[in-house]
């Protein structure tokens, strides 16, 4: 069950600007298991975005190393690595080129990685769009006419086109309305189960984490504060910071308020939540 897909070993990143040194990530060791939805939670400055950038190979690490399927990830990624690790961004409005059709955006990875035969790729694009809940004729449309949720579905289809093993989801629903968010989360859940995907789910929203993640790692100021299965983090948060984060969630039901108040009070309790 728990085969590691990605391992971070003492991973660190320091930025230097105007003589100041900012430690964005401070020696983090963490394992992501295949098939899980592993949430990276934290506020601004926690280092969660830095992790995404390092995993995607968008910037080199200052120290430490990463292993993907047991093999060291080089700083300069091979095409195979680029294909295996994909990204879904936060802002669906900017993630699609307004001057290229939806179909062209989804087809790009197929052309880049030579997936399938050229003349079958149109059909493949149609299949991907249908898989994310859009009709095939969306391929001909411009992203301009699409809603935020529809655009995010297209971005997911584009990531799927690579047939990735790991998808970095960078706040994928935080720009969406709550009803749209719920449906996109459902879609992500279904895709993970059907395709056996692994998610690295970056978010600040612990309620979303509770709903979709299997495992949670809480970050604060570049450090890993706490990690564990989602149930145990919510039932018995170990660190004061995690309790603070959960305590700050605005909730909508009394049941939630009760749980939150217990956590706020700060006494670790064996409170069952299922």
């Amino acid at each position: 069950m728990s085969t590691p897909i990605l391992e971070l070993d003492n991973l660190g990143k320091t930025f230097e600007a105007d003589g100041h040194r900012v430690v964005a990530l401070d020696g983090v060791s963490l394992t992501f298991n295949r098939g899980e939805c592993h949430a990276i939670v934290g506020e601004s400055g926690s280092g969660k975005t830095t992790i995404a950038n390092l995993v995607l190979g968008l910037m080199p690490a200052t120290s430490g190393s990463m292993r993907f399927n047991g093999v060291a990830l080089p700083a300069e990624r091979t095409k195979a690595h680029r294909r295996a690790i994909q990204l879904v961004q936060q802002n669906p409005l900017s993630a699609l080129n307004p001057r290229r059709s939806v179909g062209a955006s989804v087809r790009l990875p197929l052309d880049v990685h030579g997936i399938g035969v050229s003349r079958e790729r149109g059909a493949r694009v149609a299949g991907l769009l249908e898989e994310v809940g859009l009709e095939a004729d969306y391929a001909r449309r411009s992203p301009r006419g699409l809603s935020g949720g529809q655009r995010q579905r297209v971005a997911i289809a584009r990531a799927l086109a690579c047939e990735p093993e790991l998808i970095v989801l960078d706040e994928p629903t935080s720009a969406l309305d709550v009803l749209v968010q719920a449906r996109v989360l459902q879609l992500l859940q279904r895709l993970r189960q059907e395709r056996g995907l692994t998610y690295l789910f970056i978010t600040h929203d612990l309620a979303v984490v509770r709903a979709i993640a299997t495992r949670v790692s809480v970050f604060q100021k570049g450090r890993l504060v706490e990690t564990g299965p989602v149930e145990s983090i919510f039932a018995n948060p170990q660190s004061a910071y995690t309790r603070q984060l959960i305590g700050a969630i605005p909730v909508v039901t009394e049941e939630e308020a009760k749980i939150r108040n217990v956590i706020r009070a700060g006494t670790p309790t064996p409170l069952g939540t299922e």
Partner: protein
Amino acid sequence: MAEPVLTIRDLRLAFGSRRRQTEVLHGISLHVRASEKVALVGESGSGKSVTARLAMGLLQEAPTTHASGSIRFDGIDAIKGGREIARRRGNRVAMIFQDPTSALNPTFKIRGQFREVLRSGNPAISDADADRQAEAALAEVSIPDPKRALDSYAFQLSGGMNQRVMIAMALANRPALLMADEPGTALDVTVQAQTLKLMHELTEKRGTAVLLISHNLGVVREFADRVYVIYRGRIVEHGTTAQLFHEPRHPYTRALLAAIPKISGGGLPDLPERSPDFENPLIVHEGCGEPAGAIA
């Protein structure tokens, strides 16, 4: 019951030329009584922000906007007397915006901006008096070193500090009504929770009425006494916070509540993956919308 400080009746707003208009508000009616905390909750594009802007007299008058109905604040109609509302808003109505850092002027120190705010309420105030009041106001929002904050620029303070400064400024002239448009949404969750708590305490203490504009039902539940749910330019449901969260009546409100992920577990909400039936605007009225003029 206390007198309403803000009454909006049958507010309609359309954009476009005289011949081809698109109506975005289809008759909004709501009211806020003195020292009451009311929330207007809806998703993006529902019309909640444009309603607030109209009420503040902030919507640019243009040949392409057509507003009708009435927004009465202190006996002044905001639709007709937009300029009058704007003149008075320094002392009687105040507003807090989503992103505090961009709402403050980056080229002036907090001190100058604070003086300007206080002066709009009391033109005769001296610099020394203004500074003294500003310091007291900043201390009240738990800013650790008010003197230093006054000598800072907005970009030198954190987002949370700026939000506190904004709250202090907004309440400095003891307004009767505070309008808060998605306050703190741009901030971290823990900071947002703190600023909301602070805003709640201060307005409670001073008896300031609040109209909170938000998309976040959790925030609304914690902050407001009464809630209006706005959907596609219509109020589809309103009631006390306890009623609305306990027994939501309109299918849209129910769907919204169901769609929010819960920290009590239970996985993802079981929503149809495609458009639910309330997206058909024809049935929206069958729900529990407050009919125009049904204000007590």
